[in-house]
């Protein structure tokens, strides 16, 4: 099944990436207080849609999961369920300083401190909170990364699944996500891609 390694890039891959980067759909899930800067980015003044980025309501058809700000443990459970429902390739963008190292709520008992222990993160946007121009600059950086073929952090979830799962269980206990990540990784050849 793993005839073509995922790390090879030929001309068709380059065409695909330049098409992919122009129609990224963002899941419209506003998780924290950073969400107040998202309507200005999406509406007429800053207009994210000229880059092809649109809000989408269902995770099955979204490419970007934008974690806007802090995540309480209760929301993290839902975010993991949603993340596993998204189709690969998918990109997690950590928005704001709360996803980087806890931010302003570093001593809170109910928010998580570092997002990339629970999900593989493609890009972090620093700020509290980032301005709409910074969001658009971040998305442009993500589009460049996709164009160069380096935006492959979604594979990391399959490869290091035990690490992520252990951290998730430590945060909110054991839940049934209805997706069997290790066998999906084996079936699609993701686990053997760099062997």
């Amino acid at each position, binding site marked *: 099944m793993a005839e073509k390694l995922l790390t090879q890039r030929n001309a068709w891959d380059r065409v695909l990436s330049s098409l992919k980067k122009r129609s990224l759909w963002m899941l419209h899930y506003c998780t924290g207080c950073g969400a107040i800067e998202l309507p200005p980015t999406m509406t007429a003044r800053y207009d994210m849609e000229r880059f092809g980025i649109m809000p989408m309501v269902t995770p099955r058809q979204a490419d970007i999961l934008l974690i806007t700000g802090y995540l309480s443990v*209760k929301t993290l*459970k839902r975010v993991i369920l949603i993340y596993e429902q998204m189709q690969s390739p998918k990109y997690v963008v950590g928005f704001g300083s709360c996803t980087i190292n*806890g931010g302003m709520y570093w001593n809170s*008992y*109910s928010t998580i*401190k*570092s997002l990339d*222990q629970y999900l593989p993160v493609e890009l972090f946007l620093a700020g509290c909170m980032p301005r709409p121009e910074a969001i658009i600059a971040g998305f442009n950086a993500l589009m460049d990364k996709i164009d160069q073929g380096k935006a492959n952090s979604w594979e990391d979830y399959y490869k290091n699944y035990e690490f992520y799962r252990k*951290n998730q269980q*430590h945060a909110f206990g054991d839940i049934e996500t209805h997706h069997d990540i290790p066998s999906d990784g084996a079936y699609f050849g993701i686990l053997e891609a760099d062997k």
Partner: protein
Amino acid sequence: MNKPTLDRANVLARPPAAVGKPRSAADLLSAMADELGIKTFFQKAPRRIEGTVAPELLHSFAANLRNRLGVEHLSAISCVDWIDQGQFELVYHFWSYRDSTLMSAKVRIDRATAQMDTITDLWQPASFFERDIHEMFGVYFRGNGDLEKYILSDWNGPPPMRKDFVSRDFAHEHFQFKTYDVPWDERIQGGYYGSRNGEEKKNG
């Protein structure tokens, strides 16, 4: 469609004492002393009256405030944890629209047993505050059937607002932070403004 004209005084279910001329703070204090028998209240600031009420008398006090004095709005119920004195202090804030005055009733209950009567049968907004205090402090309100976990529905620890729960320690134990091993000193010496050991180093 019928557009009923609304006259403030004619709305159903308003206690009759709620409409009328506004009373001054002194009138309210004397009304409280005469009609309700509570003499512990005093005026603290313009439009602010406060006093202490015994826990077993609070329910009848609240009912009399509403029915006899016409105080209609329960603004909040707050809880303060006086851990050194071994007591919880519940503060009930009532706002009278007629007199534009806030009446705060302070009730002290024992911290170890932490039980109190509910006032949700008089005021429906009280159920949110009582549920919140139950989750955050662990106080049980007798007669309130709605005391379930609302905000902290996945929480397994102790009631978090109590003073013996330190949030910073909990965060350090249960979550992992990133550790940074960036050699800050080298970066600053190289190309930034800074005075290290008394010398000024400029960019260049």
